[in-house]
Every structure is written in structure tokens, then in C-alpha cells.
């Protein structure tokens, strides 16, 4: 097989198409939500909606991945808190702070930024991969997750797992020739990009809606969200 040709395809036209689907798909979903109609809230507030929304964001971003144990429900299912938090942390570090990925960003955007030192990114990536396996097992055994998981939920895990794993293998030059690893990684990334707007992985976009609504609803009542 001509891996170099595959690599060219995966990095070239296929990537461009995937990127278009990703951006177009998300834009479509965003517009659809925005255009669905928003009623004007006529309730007289007792506190600040904006303040509530800000606190809600801060809590969501700080407590959730870093100090989950301050929540009283933590002890009931610590795996999902810790694995979920570490997975997201590792994912962000790899996508935005890994030297090789910053080069990719640079070629896309025209500018880059300093990277995190490789060993740290490396560890975070490894942790994220282990966390994903834990999340997978958790989804297999937890009765609620069993009930609410359909094919899409399993595909979500798979389509995120393969780029993570193949990226790790590639960074460590394991198993196959470099261009083979690279090709697999790029193909997996392309598929993921196409899958995101079709799936709930796009929650990162609606996160901002839900958090704002939550914070405003609590803030309006003068309750800390």
C-alpha cells in the first residue's frame, strides 16, 4: 500500500472536507438553536442574572475538573468525576499545548503560541487515554449509563479514542512506520471532525448556553448556582 499517498489524502483533501463539515455543521446547529425563538423573561429578578452566569461558568470550569470532591455527590461515583475531569484536561493539553499540534494550528491560523514541555503533554495524554478506558468501563457497568447509552454514545467514545491512541503511538514511534502511524492518526482525526457536528461531542458549544441559563436562573433568585 502506498501510505504516502494515503497520508497526502488524509492531510490534504479529506482533511479540508472534514474541516468544512465540522465548521459548517456546527454553524448550522448553532444557528438552528438561535433561531428557534427565545422568550423574554418577565420575572422581576431578586439578584443578578449576569453575576449568576459568571459564577456558574467559574464553578463549571474550576470545581468540576480540579476539585470535584467539594461536591457532595462526588463520593457516590468518583470514577466519573476524576476520569471525566482528567480526560478533558488531557484532551485540551494535547490539542492546544502540544508542540506538534501547535504547528498544525500555525499552518491553519497563521500564528502559534508556546507549547507545554513534551513530557508533561505526554503524561497528560497517557492519563487521558487511561481515563477514557475507565469511562468506557463505567458506561458498561453503571445502570443509568447502560440505560441511556445508544449506538451514538459508544461511537463517541470510539471516535475520540482512536485519534488519541494513534496520536500517542505516533509520538512514541511505536509499532509501524511513521507514515503509517501518521496516516491512521489523520484519518481518525478527519472522521472525528465529521462526526462531531452529528453527535453530542458538540456539547462544548452548547455548554455555554446551558451554563448561562443555569447561572441566570439561580442568579435571578439570588441563589449562588
Amino acid at each position: 500500500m502506498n501510505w504516502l499517498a494515503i497520508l497526502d489524502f488524509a492531510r490534504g483533501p479529506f482533511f479540508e472536507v472534514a474541516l468544512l463539515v465540522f465548521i459548517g455543521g456546527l454553524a448550522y446547529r448553532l444557528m438552528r438553536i438561535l433561531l428557534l425563538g427565545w422568550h423574554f423573561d418577565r420575572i422581576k429578578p431578586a439578584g443578578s442574572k449576569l453575576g449568576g452566569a459568571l459564577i456558574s461558568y467559574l464553578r463549571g470550569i474550576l470545581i468540576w475538573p480540579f476539585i470535584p470532591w467539594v461536591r457532595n455527590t462526588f463520593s457516590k461515583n468518583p470514577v466519573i468525576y476524576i476520569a471525566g475531569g482528567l480526560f478533558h484536561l488531557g484532551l485540551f493539553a494535547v490539542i492546544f499545548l502540544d508542540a506538534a499540534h501547535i504547528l498544525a494550528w500555525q499552518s491553519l491560523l497563521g500564528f502559534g503560541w508556546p507549547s507545554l514541555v513534551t513530557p508533561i503533554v505526554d503524561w497528560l495524554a497517557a492519563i487521558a487515554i487511561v481515563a477514557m478506558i475507565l469511562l468506557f468501563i463505567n458506561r458498561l457497568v453503571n445502570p443509568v449509563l447502560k440505560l441511556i447509552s445508544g449506538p451514538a454514545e459508544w461511537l463517541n467514545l470510539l471516535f475520540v479514542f482512536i485519534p488519541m491512541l494513534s496520536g500517542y503511538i505516533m509520538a512514541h514511534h511505536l509499532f509501524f512506520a511513521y507514515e503509517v502511524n501518521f496516516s491512521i492518526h489523520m484519518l481518525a482525526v478527519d472522521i472525528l471532525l465529521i462526526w462531531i457536528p452529528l453527535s453530542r461531542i458538540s456539547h462544548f458549544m452548547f455548554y455555554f448556553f446551558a451554563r448561562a441559563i443555569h447561572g441566570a436562573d439561580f442568579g435571578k433568585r439570588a441563589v449562588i448556582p
Partner: protein
Amino acid sequence: MQAQTAVNTFVHETGGWVASQLEACTRCGMCAEACHFYQGTGNPELAPVWKVELLKRAYEQRFTIIGKLKLATGIDHHVTDDNLLHWSKIVYEACTLCNKCSMVCPMGIQLGPLIHEVRTGLSAAGMVPADLMSAVHKQEAEGSPLGVTDSVYDDRLEFFEDEYEIKLPVDKKGADTLVVFSSIEIMKYPGNIAAIAKILNAAGENWTLSHAGREVVNFAFFEGDNEETVLFLKRIFDAAKDLGVKRIVVTECGHAYDAIRWTAANLMDVPEGVEITHIAHLLGELVRTGRIKLKEGMYDNGGTITFHDACKIQRRGGHIQEPRDVLHVLAPKSFKEMIPNRAEAICCGGGGGVIAIKEADPYRYAAFELKVDQLKKVGASTVVMGCSNCRLQFDDCVQHFNLDVKVAGLSQMVADALIE
């Protein structure tokens, strides 16, 4: 077909507010750990995310490409009447709309209000538990779900005036404050009525009760029927306008407060310039401003006192601090918090209409087990609350679980501690 009616209502109710939150859900299942009904029973179908599944399916099938694809390929199916039956059971019998789940959801999805939307669809389709429905009909016909008709109201008030030696002003034009009791208080906790009257009189408040607006409980709001909800609210607002009051005070009822304070203005026109507040807030204000004086430490010698946060008065009502301020005067040494508390408190399990549905009893008791645990851990000999619906649940469950705990209403404790 009933399912079609429900789906149409869901579609009608779905604006950006509902859709963006349904889209944000990652199906992580963490909300389950918040729900006392899931915790108490271990039944995964009682997980909050599963309770909104019906709404989510209707939304996806109607508005999203993926949803339509799923239908076409047979991965998902049209909503059926059997589905409605299943969801009717779980959203009416095993959810108090306490919204604790929204505090645990990493996305912050407002699951309580979304489950209320599910109820709205089911109510349009006529899939409401019979017990709840008959209470709504009774409120429609008699003005109260507990049968407090005009004449029953008069009889009760006359009886309270004799029994407790208090003055209860009714339909007094020119009063500043309209006090609206719940029929639970009128029929089951008359001590509350006497207590609140005593406090208001001691504070020199110019207040009144009303015949037309005599019932604050809103069973249509439990049901999720917006039209009827407005009808019941209108009775109170009309009374307030007639009497020309400046404020409406809701007494010890939580869901009613959610309806009139935090929902009404989005469903109907509410009278301009009339403040709506809760007795918990008023008590705090009267104590803070010195309009009433209380015997400090009056309850300090009877063992540990703890406070139960009612989901609709504290977390959803905003009056978290006031009852604590009052308790710090009444029992500075023996007042102790349960954990978790305040906005993250665990709900009693009887609200949202649950206690009115006989078939829900097993769920209701299972959910209360979390409360039993909390009470034991804090070593409470008295548990205080500001919601008489919670109090019904506590009274019943204290018996059911054979607990040695006294259940008390906040207003009554304040009234007993008044320095005349």
C-alpha cells in the same frame, strides 16, 4: 392519538431555551447521583436524564437531521401511548421538580424546569395520575384541592379566632399586605395560621386575608397545565387588585411560591407594583428591623435543632439566609446544619404533587431515606422547615420510619418566642 398530542405540545413548547439545554447533555449520567428518588430506589429509570428523554426524543425527531435519520433507520421510534404511560409514572410519582440535579450536572442543565415541560406535554395528552387530576378538578370547582370552599373557609377562620384568641382580618380594603394561606395549613396546620396572624399583629402590619384569594396552592402547576395554572393564579391577583394591597405574602407552601413569584409573570399579566414575597423572607425582615422581638436562645435547651431547606423556598425561592438568621436568634447554641444544605440541600421527596398521589408512596418513602440519614447524622431532635408540604411529608415519614424527631414549622417557633 394521545402520543401525538403530547409530542405536539413538546414541539410547541420547544424554543431555544429548551433545545439548547437538550443539546448540551453529554449523557454522562451524573445527574442521577443528585436525585433522591434514584438514590433511594436504585432504579435507573428515575435518573433525571431519563425523565427528560421523552422531550428529547420529540425534539430530535421533529427538529434535527440526526433524529429524522434515526427514525428512518429504525434506531428510534415514534413516541407511543405506552411511552406516555411510562413517563407519566416517573415524572409525576418520582420527581418533585426540586432541581437539585441541575447543581450536579456538569453542563448545568435545568433539569427540574425541563421535567416540568415533560409534565406539560403529558397533561395536554391527559396522562396525569388520577389522584392529582381529581385534586385539580376540586380546586377548579371549589377553589381549593382540600375542599376549602367559601363557607368552610369562614367556619375555619371563626374557629381559629375562638380557639387561638386572635383577630383574622378578611377582605379588608386598604390593607398593605394580602396573606394567602395554603389549604394544608387551613385544614392540617391551623397553628401556622394563628402563628402568622400573631406575628403580623405584633409587628403592627396592616394585613388582610381574602375570600376570593384564599388558596395559594396551585395543583395545576403541579400538573403542568399552564391554562389552569393561570386561572388559579388569577384568583389571587384579582383579590390583590380588588383590595388594593401593596404586597402578597405566600405562607408556608413552596410550590405555590414558585408558581406565583417565579412563573406567573411569564404566563400572564401580573398586577403592577405589587410585591410578591414569602413568609420566610418577611420573618427575616421583621427580626432584622426589630419590628418583632424574640426571646433569644428560647429553644436552646431541647437538643439539636436543624433546618430542612424546602426546594421551592430555598434553592428555587432564594430565601436561604433569612430562616438561618431567625434560627440563630432562637437557638444560637443548638442550631446545626445538615449536610448538604442550603442551595444543595436534599429535597423531602413529597413536593411537586408527589404526596398527593397514593401510588407514589413507595417512591416517596424511598426518597425520604436520604433525609433519615441526614437527620441521624446531625443528631437532630427537632427539624424545622418553612413549607407545610414538606411538613406533611416529614410528619408522615417520621411515623413511617419510627424516628424520634419533632417536626416544627418556622413561623410557629417564631410566634411562640415573641416578646409581646
